[in-house]
């Protein structure tokens, strides 16, 4: 069992990196990279909290994180398909130029 402080710091840093990427980036692919980093932060924290019992393993968090990983993969796949379609139509990934998507 490793000290949870390491994982707390890593999770917080990953979360902030993902948040920064979502806030300041304009490239659609980079936004998806930020979303994936956010997913990784949540999953890491969940698994880290579940391994805090010395010598014991709890199968519930691991199974939930496994399901979350599959769903995260589908989210990213659909997002990338959307990005490909956007690039085909507008020839750019810049979200500031995609004003035509407004109502």
């Amino acid at each position, binding site marked *: 069992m490793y000290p949870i402080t390491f*994982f707390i710091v890593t999770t917080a840093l990953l979360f902030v*990196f993902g948040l920064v990427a979502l806030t300041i980036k304009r490239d659609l692919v980079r936004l998806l990279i930020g979303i994936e980093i956010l997913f990784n932060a949540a999953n890491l924290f969940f698994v880290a909290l579940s391994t805090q019992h010395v010598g014991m*393993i709890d199968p519930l968090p691991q199974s939930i994180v*496994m399901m979350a990983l599959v769903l995260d993969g589908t989210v990213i796949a*659909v997002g990338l398909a959307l990005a490909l*379609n956007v690039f085909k139509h507008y020839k750019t990934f810049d979200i500031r130029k995609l004003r035509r998507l407004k109502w």
Partner: protein
Amino acid sequence: MIEILFILSLVVVSALLAVTSRNIVFAVIALLTTNISLGVAYFMMGAPTVALFQLAIFAGAVVVFFVITVMLTTGGDVEFDDDSVPWINKTTQLVLAAASVLVLLGVSLTREIAFPYLEYASSALETLMFAPTNYDDITTAVSQFLWQHRGFDLVSQSFVVLAAVICCIALLKIRRDHE
């Protein structure tokens, strides 16, 4: 102890590179490094099935999707010229700083106060926890738990994945029609 520190610092540094790198190909490679080192960290923490899924899905399939998207579109062009931090306005900077402070505070507070998950795990699910002797025990227990206690979730998840596949096919089909 030092090995998990090394792996976690590799995770943080590569995630930082994935966010800050101006070339999108380097960003994807940094993301691949993040995912692989996270898989190794899961394995060291005693979660081999999660590590397997992380390596297969995040470090495998998702990174391949990213590479294919980059190859079919910009092909590794450098980021937009004016895409640097100063273009964001003061409000965004304030919101970002406040959110970062809140995340750091919230995550560090989980150590001080009784986090609900820990109580839940220590009381209600005491009987489901077990002491493994090797990695085979963990993989067997997790797969048994999935099918016995989370069967409905698994079936629902398969429908979600099916919907996502149909969605991707529809999106790419529209693209081909326009050609």
